[in-house]
């Protein structure tokens, strides 16, 4: 099984070190890379650190902090993991979101010395918005607090309260030392008071849900191949069978799927994730259209309620931006900002404000050109969007209603 894991948490709580440790203990590192890092550490007159495997920018090493997200792969006895490190600084939230958006599960890293900090909270808020429901907590740097169970319990109850406030149902809290590898890959004898699983045992036990969702296909492009019109795109959710009766929205075109094709082959059916081509009888179709089965069709909307986080200086009520969802790209007006939300605490900090600022979140009524979006809770693939202003991706959100 493939599992995408993101490590989140406050700066200096040890995310990069923990990933370096996982790679090292799973024997995924090339010998030469270890030597290279040892050489670098000498050059910079520092002690060898696992974080150096991930922080590959010169600036990152000099500043001793992660600037940009990075994904690395390793294999346990059971699963293939893509593990993503994200920066713990507020100024790099954009990079944190980039890294976290592909995750199936998250590991929250909290220092046993410092407990819950600003980015611990903000990352929890953002994970909740991104719909990542499985969060495992590791209380790191247990070596620095003398492996004391009392300190672990204190931090655990602090995090437990935080997670509850964001609606996470987390039961796994693991005391670790990423630096020494305690309870990461191997059990720690010093902390014999801890009877639970190690981090790798926890990750190997992950189950990913695969609910059957209604069929949605996004149109990327129309190609003409040997004078046949091929509608190229991807099945985002559900299954597609040859012969299915479908409707394209917002174009409104109905048709029967005559062929499902990939290069040099015809298929009988396709499933979520498949990049394919389809051929239908006739009718106008364009990039940005979404098709579904006639009996459970996608519905284009002109207005919806979303929750978004802003990564640009400001956004005003009445402003027009571009909204992207699937392959659709439409003009969208900020019709109303309902609630302004502090992205650190998740608290509502303003009703119907005129404007929101960088790192604010908000519930917003968007008025758009006709576009197919779905409730994030129903079909997440078409329930998430990015906002574009002056050619720049400046915000991201999910569809509530």
């Amino acid at each position, binding site marked *: 099984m*493939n599992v995408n894991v993101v490590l989140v948490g406050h700066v200096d709580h040890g995310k990069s070190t923990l990933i370096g440790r996982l790679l090292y203990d799973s024997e995924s590192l*090339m*010998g*030469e*890379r270890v030597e290279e890092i040892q*050489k*670098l550490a000498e*050059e910079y007159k520092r002690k060898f650190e696992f974080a150096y*495997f*991930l922080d*590959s*920018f*010169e*600036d990152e090493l000099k500043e001793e902090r992660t*600037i*940009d*997200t*990075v*994904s*690395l*792969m390793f294999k346990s006895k059971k699963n*293939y993991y*893509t593990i993503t490190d994200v920066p713990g600084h507020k100024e790099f939230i*954009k*990079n944190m*979101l*980039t890294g976290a*958006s*592909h995750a199936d599960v998250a590991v929250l890293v909290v220092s046993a010395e410092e407990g819950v900090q600003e980015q611990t909270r903000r990352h929890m808020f953002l994970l909740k918005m991104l719909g990542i429901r499985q969060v495992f907590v590791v209380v790191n740097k247990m070596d620095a607090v003398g492996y004391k169970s009392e300190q672990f319990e204190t931090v655990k109850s602090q995090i437990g309260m935080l997670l509850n406030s964001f609606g996470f149902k987390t039961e796994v809290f693991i005391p670790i030392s990423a630096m020494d590898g305690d309870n990461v890959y191997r059990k720690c004898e010093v902390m014999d008071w801890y009877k639970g699983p190690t981090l790798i045992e926890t990750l190997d036990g992950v189950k990913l849900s695969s609910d059957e969702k209604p069929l949605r296909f996004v149109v*990327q*492009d129309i*190609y003409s*191949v040997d004078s046949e019109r*091929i509608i*190229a*795109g*991807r099945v985002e959710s559900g299954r597609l069978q040859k012969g299915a009766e479908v409707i394209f929205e917002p174009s409104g075109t109905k048709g029967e799927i005559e062929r499902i*094709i*990939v*290069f*040099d082959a015809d298929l009988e059916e396709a499933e979520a*994730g*498949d*990049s394919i*081509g389809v051929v239908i009888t006739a009718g106008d179709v364009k*990039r940005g259209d979404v098709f579904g089965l006639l009996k459970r069709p996608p519905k284009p909307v002109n207005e919806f309620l979303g929750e978004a986080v802003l*990564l640009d200086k400001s956004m005003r009520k009445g402003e027009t931006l571009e909204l*992207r969802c699937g*392959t659709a790209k439409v003009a969208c007006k900020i019709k109303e900002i309902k609630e302004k939300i502090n992205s650190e605490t998740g608290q509502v900090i303003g009703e119907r404000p005129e404007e929101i600022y960088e790192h604010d979140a908000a519930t917003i009524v968007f008025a758009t050109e006709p576009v197919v979006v779905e409730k994030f809770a129903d079909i997440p693939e078409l329930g*998430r*969007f*990015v906002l*574009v202003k002056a*050619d*720049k*991706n*400046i915000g*991201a959100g999910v569809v509530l209603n």
Partner: protein
Amino acid sequence: MGLKELENKSIYIIREAYAEFDNPAILWSMGKDSTTALWLCRKAFFGDIPFPVIHIDTGYKFKQMYEFRDRIASEWGFDLVIAKNEDAIKAGVGPKSGKLECCTKLKTEALMQYIDKRGFDALFLAIRRDEHGIRAKERVFSPRDEAFRWNYRDQPLEMWDQYQTQTQTQTQTQSQSEETVQNHTRVHPILHWRELDVWEYIKREKIIPVNSMYFASNGKRYRSLGCEPCTSPIDSNANTIDAIVKELRTTKVAERSGRAQDKEKAFMMQKLRALGYM
């Protein structure tokens, strides 16, 4: 990810870039990665590659690479563009000028000249995250400014499969004296593949051509192909695709261990890439 998922994602990326940009092209070094990317383009467009294929020719490639290039170009029938920095070659730039200078002039600047000439606004590059620490930090769609620079300190928000499709004008830090070309976006369709995935995919597809230099003879094979003076083979007896797959499952030797330009000093690759190196 399994091979099917890897392929699906790559095809999605290739089609997105083709739909969003006016004048894309793909870089082809004749190695396993970019040849796989070419094949994925053929799959994405059901046969023919609808944009030019650029080979950056330093003049220092291996003889087998030139033969391979000409054979595949004629078999697959695409529009091959050979990009050469003629002035630098005439001026005698070569490996003896220093690796940073040589790579920058003969690769980066050669490419700049052709972007200028042909007005490409997007370039497909077959780099992978697991090749090098610095490549691991790349976005799938990565903008480059007019001076060809990669602003790695401020990369775009790239969530889900929503890419930054506009190349922005970033002139604020640019001095007058710098040479400028049209800004462009680098598109990385196989960024999420590992070296082993590429070989397993080549094995599965059966028809992706492979340069014979990858197969061992007399106990040596090339694992990564580059210019003749700066590329050395590794010790290996893997002389079939199956044997290479088997070797990669257990090796502890880094893929680019035979590529001299990465190693001259710390952060060489970052310096090369910030200047627009591939």
